[in-house]
């Protein structure tokens, strides 16, 4: 072990992403010690890896569940039932929020958002040390050694496995939805009506700048709150898992056993948060896009 394991280093280790990015002097590096010197063009490789992996898993699962030529009158089994249940759930929600507005993108978008976030959140239920330690050993085995200054031991390899505890991921998704919202606002209402919506109330046309500032805050707060809500909930959950895990490492046997019990209780409770946050993100996505389709003046 390169450095002594302390409470602080343990927590830090779990909250640090594996980052690869452009350094200020122009070179590229994945060394955690260089993170401070990186420009904006840095990527959290671990978050992106799990995000793409789980998104791909989602697409694969739903593709595999109903291969081409699945007969409509055959009895659905196993995975197909799960897939149909998800789709019905999403369709119901879209129906209740969107009503009569016809837009074929909304339901697939909501489905992707829901299942993807659910899968990413579920990574939180895997014991906190399991995947990071595994990844650390794999990385050390393949690319570690003295010639790589930063992988000096399996423990020096950072690997966060829950993408939704990374604000970049949640805000990135919120950003994509924000872009879609603007696109549909303009294409459905027209640029004029959209601009009017942002500038002509609450105070009428003589106070346009004030209106614009107020509406802009309102407008931008939506995606930011959308992203931060998911991040905050999952980050807090992850944090508690880390703290409970600490009880096993640094205290007496009694507290260790208490920690196991607490871990179980929190994991059970966290299942609720995992599903709830995925649902909330989906519901708000649908709601924001429904707002973008509303043409009536208010």
């Amino acid at each position, binding site marked *: 072990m390169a450095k002594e394991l302390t409470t602080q280093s343990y927590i830090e280790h779990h909250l640090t992403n594996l*980052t690869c*990015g452009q350094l200020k002097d122009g070179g590229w590096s994945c060394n955690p010690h260089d*993170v401070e010197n*990186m420009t*904006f*063009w*840095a*990527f*959290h490789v671990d*978050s*992106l890896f799990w*995000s*793409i992996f789980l*998104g791909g898993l*989602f*697409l694969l699962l*739903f*593709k595999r*569940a*109903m291969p*081409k030529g*699945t007969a*409509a*009158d055959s009895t659905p089994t196993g995975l197909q039932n799960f*897939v*149909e249940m998800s*789709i*019905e759930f999403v*369709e119901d929600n879209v129906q209740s929020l969107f009503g009569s507005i016809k837009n*074929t*993108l909304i*339901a*697939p*978008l909501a*489905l*992707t*958002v829901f299942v*993807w976030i659910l899968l990413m959140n579920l990574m939180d239920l895997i014991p906190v040390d399991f995947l990071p330690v595994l990844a650390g050993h794999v990385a050390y085995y393949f690319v570690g050694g003295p010639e790589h200054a930063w992988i000096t031991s399996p423990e020096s390899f950072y690997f966060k496995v829950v993408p939704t505890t*990374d*604000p*970049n*991921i949640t*805000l*990135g*998704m919120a*950003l*994509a939805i924000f*872009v879609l919202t603007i696109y549909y606002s303009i294409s459905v209402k027209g640029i004029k009506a959209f601009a009017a919506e942002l500038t002509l109330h609450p105070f009428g046309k003589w106070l346009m700048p004030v209106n614009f500032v107020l509406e802009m805050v309102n407008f931008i707060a939506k995606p930011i709150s959308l992203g931060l809500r998911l991040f905050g909930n999952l980050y807090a959950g992850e944090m508690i898992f880390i703290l409970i895990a600490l009880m096993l490492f640094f205290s007496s046997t009694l507290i260790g056993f208490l920690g196991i019990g607490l871990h179980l209780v929190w994991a059970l409770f966290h299942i609720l948060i995992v599903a709830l946050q995925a649902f909330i993100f989906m519901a708000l996505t649908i709601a924001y896009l429904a707002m973008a389709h509303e043409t009536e003046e208010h």
Partner: protein
Amino acid sequence: MNINATLLAQAVVMIVFVAICWKYIYPPILEIMQERQKKISDGLEAAKKADDSLEEAKLAFDKEMDQAKAEAAEILKKANVRATKIVGDASLKAEVEAEKIMASATTTIENDTNKAKEELRQQMSDIIIDTTQKILGDEISTSKHDDILKKAAEDL
């Protein structure tokens, strides 16, 4: 919390995933589901129709059955009446016939009896005359004692 290009990368990844889902994943599944939904609702409707027609057939059957029963009862009643009448007529006819036969039989018997009596009387008187003639010889002639003989025959 450090915001960096991961955010943009994730936004792009998301748009790609949503597009794939939108184009290739969602529509075929939804199509199959809707097709099955239609099949199920069609099937239910057909079942309901079949139920209805069964009910109708049952009603028609009951009606026909009732009618047939009523007809049968009517026929039975008519047959009974007819039979009673036939029996009545027949017995009446038979009685009359019997009486007739009886009467004619009685007459025949009476006639025969009278005839027999007459014959007997005749034979008796002949026998008596014969016998008397044989006993008395010619003393008594038939002509002389005709009155007496006639009286005797009447007494017999």
